[in-house]
């Protein structure tokens, strides 16, 4: 029997996936009272090097449906991502899209070639090709729309991470990026998927950060702090829709066995 006719969600699927999904970090699931509700959009605001990259990969490690699990990266290659999954022995059958590589090939490659032509001129082969080329290669370079469409093409109970949004804020109008986020959030909710969006805190101004936080169902921040002569990595749950009891501050370590492992700070009265 189908419950949600738009996404063809059957009772069997609903029973299989349940109301909550794992963060990929069992200890974190426990702290969050079971995991992350299906349909949630998570915003991860991160200081550079604070570990959000690793968190995004670990978040996809449950990989309930490999064909419906997608990692969208703007600055790592597929090989680099796979190396991390292999290192921690996580399931690596997910889908990977490397926008960074595509950008390098399509846009930067073209810009480099143009600079070369301007500096060195055309040789006979170039001229032959030029005289036979009848159309401008207007293959779409709108990576923002491509990324949003990729997410919105996911089926029910999908799991997706975008690491990270800085790429889009640097190249596209900020209001367009926000519009796309709203659409992705709506789709995630309807499809009962889980979407993780990472963005660096130093690339945003306050109003944009606030707007993104209001769209997201859950907001995490990742920070690095100097304590004496040591670094401490800290994760803060700043927002959890309909579950304020989940707001917390925790430090975490990265171990070869488990990846990111949080440690809670408890006040003892």
């Amino acid at each position, binding site marked *: 029997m189908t419950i949600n006719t738009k996404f063809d969600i059957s009772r069997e699927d609903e029973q299989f996936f349940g109301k909550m999904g794992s963060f990929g970090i069992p200890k974190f699931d426990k702290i969050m009272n079971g995991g992350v509700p299906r349909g949630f959009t998570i915003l991860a605001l991160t200081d550079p090097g604070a570990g959000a990259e690793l968190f995004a990969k670990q978040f996809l490690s449950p990989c309930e449906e490999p064909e419906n699990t997608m990692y969208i990266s703007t600055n790592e290659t597929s090989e680099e991502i796979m190396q991390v999954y292999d290192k921690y022995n996580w399931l690596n059958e997910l889908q990977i899209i490397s926008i960074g590589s595509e950008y390098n090939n399509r846009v930067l490659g073209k810009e480099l070639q*143009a600079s070369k*032509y301007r500096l060195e001129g055309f040789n006979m082969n170039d001229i032959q090709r030029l005289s036979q080329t009848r159309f*401008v290669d207007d293959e779409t370079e709108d990576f923002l729309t491509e990324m949003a469409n990729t997410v919105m093409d996911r089926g029910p109970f999908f799991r997706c991470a975008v690491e990270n949004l800085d790429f889009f804020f640097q190249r596209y109008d900020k209001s367009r990026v926000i519009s796309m986020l709203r659409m992705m959030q709506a789709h995630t909710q309807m499809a009962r998927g889980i979407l993780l969006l990472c963005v660096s805190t130093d690339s945003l101004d306050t109003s944009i950060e606030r707007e993104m936080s209001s769209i997201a169902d859950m907001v995490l921040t990742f920070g690095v702090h100097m304590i004496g002569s040591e670094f401490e990595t800290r994760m803060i749950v700043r927002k959890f829709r309909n579950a304020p009891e989940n707001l917390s501050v925790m430090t975490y370590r990265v171990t070869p066995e488990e990846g990111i492992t949080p440690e809670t700070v408890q006040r003892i009265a």
Partner: protein
Amino acid sequence: MESAAGYVRDRCVTGIHGLDEILRGGIPYGSTVLAAGSCGCGKTTLGLEFLVRGAENGEACAHFTATEPSVKLLDNVRQYDFFDMRMVDKGLINVFDMDVLYSWLGLTKATFDLGDIHALIKAITDIVNTIGVTRLVIDSVTTLCYKIQSEQLIRDFLFTLGKKLSTLGCTTLLISEITSEKSGVNMWSSFGVEEAISDGIIVLGDVERMGHLLRFLQVVKMRGTSHSRAKYAVELTSIGVMLTPMLKWGSSG
């Protein structure tokens, strides 16, 4: 691609019916000539025939199209008997889309600055030099110049391009679009500078005779040669442009 071998003349014989007589033998070699006219007057056809007649003599020719895509241009020109697609296939006539050239050079902005202009000039002269082009048409220079920010830059562009092409021994036809009002008041440039820079000006237009429009051609200027300054009636036929002196009586304009 074949390059012209041993082509040495002091005149570029256009091969266009009537035009070489008007020019007393042809266009002086290496000149930059403005072919200015309002829409539908036969400028593109004139330019193409200029190249075809050169290709028939084994000259390497180049056509830069800015106004219409090369696919459409080649499709339209096939109807003419004087045009043979094999000349394009063999590389005797090389057709370049300006849009594609802009894209290859990274000229993606709405307007060109000095650096962009120099890149464009370098690209065109590279092509001319590498292939050994002796006949070149830019159709239209007006469309190209719309992208240039100022009149001074347009002047620099045309002057530098003309000088370099002349040094390379290339005779160039710059197609210029003017409105019919302008063609009546002795102004043959859209930007006011092309006519001053060019070595020659050939004007194409329409005269009205009792409600009918008749095409005409007139050589207004040609440095380095004497020429007829009369108006000639033009017929665009399948074998090319044909010219005959226009009757003096009974026409206005």
